[in-house]
């Protein structure tokens, strides 16, 4: 057995955790921004799927992985734009629209895939990595963490940037006000609709980017329904990590790690039924909830449409 846990295998496990966790982190980050501003984005799954499809389509068509990521973000943001118009602008029920967008995105991408790729199943070449000098030569974690496609570093940077925005900028204050007391934000001269729309669009872009990462880096291919509930896990992660992008990073890594542990145990031939191992991430999160659940409070105005001057 010791021969199994070689450097290469450990590297692959960590790498797998990162690759699986990253889309969850991006989606969760988006949800966190949106929730902070008071919009419950149940359509995250749909935004990820459109991002996955758009990202793959453009990356495959143009040969540029970056154009693909851009397209994924734009695709996710486009779905989010529908949500912004209907929910933030008009005040339609966020849960109804969120689920509708998810169903619609599932249907549309499956249809598109059927007509476009169902015969050829094109796959992307390996995404080039960007080794970080010095760090990438560390054993195990070097290649797993510091020799990754540049988008991975960007995604982690997005967490840091979000954290900075939340804690250090006027925008962060405005986002918090939009979720806690939109009337106060409005009275302070900041448009609630603008802030919330921006938050929703950002959420869509991040979720779309997460989806694009999934199809371009995670799988190298698009298949229908490939996000497989990742958006919903992102929602849960965001709620757990309320207001703290760094916790989100930890949560996503934990999720990815559980998946990798599952694989590791299987490959090692440990005879625990795979379904039991696969309950690991969920059970862990539930345990965290039971232990620290009280902190999982939500912004008071979450899901509540704001109308100026209404009473």
């Amino acid at each position, binding site marked *: 057995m010791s021969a199994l846990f070689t450097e290469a295998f450990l590297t692959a496990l960590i790498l797998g955790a990162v690759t699986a966790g990253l889309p969850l982190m991006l989606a969760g980050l988006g949800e966190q921004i949106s929730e902070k501003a008071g919009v419950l984005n149940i359509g995250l799954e749909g935004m990820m799927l459109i991002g996955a499809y758009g990202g793959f389509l453009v990356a495959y068509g143009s040969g540029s992985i970056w154009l693909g990521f851009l397209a994924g973000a734009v695709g996710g943001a486009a779905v989010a734009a529908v949500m912004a118009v209907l929910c933030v602008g008009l005040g339609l029920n966020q849960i109804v629209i969120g689920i509708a967008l998810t169903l619609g995105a599932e249907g549309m991408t499956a249809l598109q895939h059927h007509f476009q790729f*169902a*015969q050829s199943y094109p*796959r992307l070449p390996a995404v080039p990595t960007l080794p970080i000098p010095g760090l990438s030569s560390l054993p195990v974690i070097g290649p797993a963490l510091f020799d990754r496609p540049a988008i991975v570093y960007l995604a982690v940077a997005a967490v840091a940037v979000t954290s900075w925005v939340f804690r250090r900028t006027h925008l962060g204050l405005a986002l918090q006000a939009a979720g806690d007391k939109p009337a106060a934000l409005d009275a302070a001269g900041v448009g609630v609709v603008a802030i919330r729309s921006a938050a929703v669009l950002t959420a869509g872009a991040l979720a779309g980017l997460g989806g694009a990462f999934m199809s371009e880096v995670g799988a190298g291919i698009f298949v229908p329904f490939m996000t497989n509930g990742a958006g919903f896990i992102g929602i849960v992660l965001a709620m757990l990590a309320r207001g703290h992008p760094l916790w989100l990073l930890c949560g996503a890594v934990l999720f990815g790690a559980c998946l990798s542990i599952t694989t590791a145990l299987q490959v090692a031939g440990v005879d625990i039924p795979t379904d039991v191992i696969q309950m690991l991430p969920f059970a862990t999160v539930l345990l965290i909830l039971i232990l620290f659940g009280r902190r999982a409070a939500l912004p008071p105005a979450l899901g509540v449409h704001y109308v100026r001057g209404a009473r």
Partner: protein
Amino acid sequence: AELKSIAILTPEAGTDYGWNQQGIVAAKAAGAAAGVKVIVAENLGYGDVRPTLRELAEDGVGLLIAHASGYNTAAPEIGAEKKIPVAIVDSPDARAAGKVADYTASGHEGAYLAGRLAAKMNRTGTVGIVVSGEPPSWNSQSVAFAEGAKAEKPAIAVRYAVIGPAAYSDAAGGKRVTEALIAAGADIVFGQGNGSSFGMLQAVETGKATDGGKVFFIDVIGDKTPIDKGNLLSSVVWNLQPVYAAMIADAKAGKYGSRNYGIQLADDSVTLLKTKSIPDKVWGEIQAIRKDIVDGKIKLTPHFDADAVHKIVSPLTVAAQ
């Protein structure tokens, strides 16, 4: 009896170079050969197919082929209700004269050959199996593949991993798990899955074996040669046309339900795909083994349960040998 049309019901689209496509293509071919109209109901998912079964029955279909293990409860029920013969999989005991016949397809003979092939071409001492789930037909092939590999090279390590729950479409998971197996030393990966198998293929195409060389992929059921980029070593190809042809013939002859159907190397309903990556010498040896199986010199029994898989891929078993 007169048989004007048959219908085949599949859970996913018939464009997967795999289970669904094979069923639909074979049914169409068998129907065309017998002059019977074939109705295809695809993408039905794994939910309740009773409404579709009833509707097809009411439309006058004379034989319902329920092409998913998930349909093996509903189809006989509706068959009985509408008095129409049905074909199901994974339930050999459900056979009933005039009503139900089973065609539990097990490609285990082909998978055994694939295992022999993998071991012959293996450089690193490790081969891998990735599956999207653990349905019986996957299990029997996983076991046979491992048996084949070990028969060829007793010291070989067979690494096994399942992607995740409901992971038929989890292409990213397929890629991730395959990459882990490659890192664990596998230079040949035997992959079974639907949408997720394209992720496995991508991992093989973009990854490097631990010895720095190329990684090969062995597929199941379909022939992915049209979309291959040079990493497809082989495939355990199924051909259900003889099965369906026999069903149609039996139904016409009024003998439907008197027997179950299967696929095997003997009648080429299971074959191992020859690609240009297989050297002719190796291929020749494989053909010899094939003949031994057909002749009964090598006896193979299918094992459909997941436990059997876990047992044979366990490192403890390796140590014991």
